[in-house]
């Protein structure tokens, strides 16, 4: 029996649900693994986990946002043979990573400024917020399972991988990035694979009646598909919603936001640049009021712009 531990960091629970949705296959896993820790599902105390000097597989969910969380993640990871970074928070920082541009104080103030009353009361020890980071920023995992939350495709691959590891005790590569190594565009049912993909102008979601078959970019709707790793079966596109990029970049370490930004900007009105000229183009580009939220919703924490901002504020 191998030991499997599931350690949540800063999570929403989506990853728990996703992992739990293996359903009957969980039982299959239980043939190979003893779940020594999974607070959401198994009533075992952390103290029990800390008694173990080693676990075979650690599945880490969520990002890192307090000192204690970081310590814990490092501690347990140091005892784990295989570390799986599970879910986009853990791998890329995900939506909470959008706060990477602010200090914890600024974040707290946003809440504090809205309440009706601030009460002087007993002050119990609260964990020390640190700058939010992805699990992969503090630990080097062997397996990356992106997705918000990870979709069937990734879950299947992870399941296979875990069973295989239980049988062989080996992994295919030093770093395994789950999902198919191509962008969502490649198999997108809306990509005719002919003609051009001219972005006629940029429309925000409240401005456009979404065509259920046409490429979103050709409808002027931002879609991260071209730059996003294929970690799902076009879950969102299939229900007529553009890809927002939760799968992260096609290749580990590249900046999906910048690539998508460059691609979209380049294809924007490519057929009429000389007619509308700079002002016409600016008019469309300015439709994107929220560049960060549009191109970096899930990967800001890993972006060049974040690093730049960081370097800057540390420089000051």
């Amino acid at each position: 029996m191998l030991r499997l531990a599931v350690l949540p960091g800063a999570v929403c629970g989506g990853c728990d649900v996703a992992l739990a949705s293996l359903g009957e296959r969980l039982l299959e896993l239980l043939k190979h693994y003893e779940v020594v820790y999974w607070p959401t599902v198994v009533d075992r105390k952390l103290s029990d986990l800390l008694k173990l000097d080693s676990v075979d597989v650690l599945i880490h969910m969520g990002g890192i946002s307090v000192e204690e969380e970081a310590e814990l993640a490092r501690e347990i990871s140091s005892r784990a043979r295989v570390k799986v970074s599970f879910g986009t928070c853990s791998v890329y920082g995900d939506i909470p990573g959008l706060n990477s541009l602010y200090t914890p104080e600024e974040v707290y103030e946003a809440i504090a400024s809205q309440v009706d009353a601030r009460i002087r009361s007993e002050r119990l020890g609260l964990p020390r917020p640190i700058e939010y980071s992805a699990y992969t920023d503090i630990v080097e995992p062997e397996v990356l399972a992106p997705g918000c939350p990870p979709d069937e495709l990734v879950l299947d691959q992870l399941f296979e991988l875990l069973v295989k590891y239980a049988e062989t005790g080996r992994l295919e590569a030093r770093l395994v990035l789950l999902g198919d190594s191509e962008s969502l565009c490649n198999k997108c049912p809306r990509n005719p694979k002919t003609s051009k993909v001219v972005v006629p102008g940029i429309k925000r979601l409240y401005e456009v009646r979404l065509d259920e078959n046409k490429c979103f970019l050709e409808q002027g709707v931002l879609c991260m598909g071209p730059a996003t790793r294929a970690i799902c079966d076009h879950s969102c596109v299939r229900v007529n919603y553009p890809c927002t990029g939760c799968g992260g970049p096609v290749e580990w370490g590249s900046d999906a936001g910048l690539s998508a930004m460059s691609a979209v900007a380049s294809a924007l009105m490519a057929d009429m640049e000389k007619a509308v000229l700079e002002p016409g183009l600016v008019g469309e580009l300015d439709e994107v009021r929220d560049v960060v939220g549009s191109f970096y919703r899930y990967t800001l924490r890993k972006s060049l712009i974040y690093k730049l901002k960081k370097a800057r504020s540390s420089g000051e």
Partner: protein
Amino acid sequence: MRIGVFVCHCGVNIAGVVNVKRVVEEARKLPGVVHAEDYTYMCSEPGQELIVRAIREHGLDGVVVAACTPSLHYETFARAVERAGLSRYRLEMASIRELDSWVHLDKELATEKAVRIIAGAVAKLAGSRVYEPIRLEVTRRAMVIGGGIAGITAALTLAKMGIPVVLVEKAPTIGGKMAMLHETFPTLDCAQCILTPLMAEVARHPLVKIYTLAEVEGVEGYVGNFKVKIRVKPRGVRVEDCRLCGFCERVCPVEVPSEFNRGLSKRKAIYIPFAQAVPAAYVVDFEHCTRCGRCLKVCPTKAINLDQREELVEEVVGAVIVATGYELYPPEKLPEYQYGAEDDVVDSLQFERILDVQGPTRGEIRRPSDKKPVKRVVFIQCAGSRDVSHLPYCSKICCMYTAKHAMLFLERVPGGEAYVFYIDVRAGGKGFEEFIKRAQEHGVVYIKGRVARVYKDRATGDVVVEGYDLLDNREIVIRADLVVLALGMVSALDKKLTEALKIPTDPYMFVSEVHPKLRPVETPAAGVLVAGTTQGPKDIPESIAQAASAAAKAAELLIRGYIERDPLVAEVDRDKCNGCRVCVTVCPYGAVEIVEGKARVNEVVCEGCGACAASCPVGAIQLRNYTESQALEVVKAVLRVK
């Protein structure tokens, strides 16, 4: 990497400001650099020898020459490294003269900058690979689309260079608009007299193959090997058997307006457009022919075949010249001038026919409505042109031909009156201004102003023109016999053809050239050239000049039988590509297409700008020797240096 850096003093040009010795020291520290030295004049024989020797002695596999600019000496040093057995793609130049020593005084800073520039060059070189030049066999044959004066000129020019030509004309005869003209400005020589010999010559030329009644249906392939599908409509008359006896025409019961005389006269359903038509043969207008068969009976050579079908032929050519010419702006769009409503309002080409001795009135100037001799004519310039609600551009030739019309009219009709409404008179051209002057001396009255409306006075049959004279600042009313509209020029090009050839146009369907100054006859689609008014309003000499130059450009591609190109173009990693089509979209040359779901670059068509590479969301398409990783390394390298 074994890179050598060679720093040129260029006498004092560089060394006077840049501390060359220090640059050499610093260069030695750069990653991959195994050798660095300086010399007074690297471009000199001994300088080049020094590079060659160093390559051999130190087994260099890359060379950076820090000197002037590639535009000046890249070839020089490329040959040098090739002499030493190194590929030219393993050479980089660092322009520390123009970009540094010549623009800075501060020795310290200039020296640092030199090192940064060199560091960039070294970093780029580190990622460069060696490529063979691209060579493509081409079909030594050209196609000219459009048999007007531009097309004829292009075809003849090529044929005379020994390059076979296929000339495609959609009308039953070549000759185009020029054939309709009476005389040409500013010399007033007869158009037919100069055009028809050319028509005959091109028809005779053994290397020229002419399709009339033909239109391009589709185009496959690319520069060097275009497969062009041509739809050829039936002529109904075997050209070689037609003796031009005209019996058929006489017995033909069907009458329709003559295109050649622009409706001012009638022709039969079997007809010859005009006497000197080429090919010299009758043609059946199958649209109107009733198939009564009378012509069949009278034809002495049995040349007529009313059951002839249209056919689809394919021609393979290496280059295409588009010379589809122009049409007049549809006068119906200018209702204020009453064209169509009133027979005595005619367009400029109709007036050419009226003037012409072969024209509907045998050259006598009578009003179309009641054949009454014309005494007073009003010419309206800029009919459609220079008008934002119609054609914002100037059609360029109208001022001149209007002057010509007016002058010819006054010559023909003693005591006649000619009035010209104009916005500006544009006579920029050899002998043009003088010509306008002559017209005015002849008594042509020029009125600066616009015409408000034109209407027929039923009582007198006059055409009344109400306008405004801006100079005298007064309303002006002229009772004329005839009104001539100087209609603007619009492109005769249609979307079907532009899409087949992948050539862009401006909003008025005039072909956009690759570069308006440097490459005025080349379209962004490699191997597709443009001549005449297809590219924009022009007069005859300009069209001819451009046609000749288009022919020359075509010859440049075809004459050697193959094209050789710089291999530094885009290439696709098909494993990475996801077929998102962004590259296809941004490529200005149609050089990228999606094949089996993934992008493929046509090396011959690609010009190597790298727009696709910079747009690719997954870095699958890269510009050779300017890959993204190279670019990023260069950036880091220049900033790494203190």
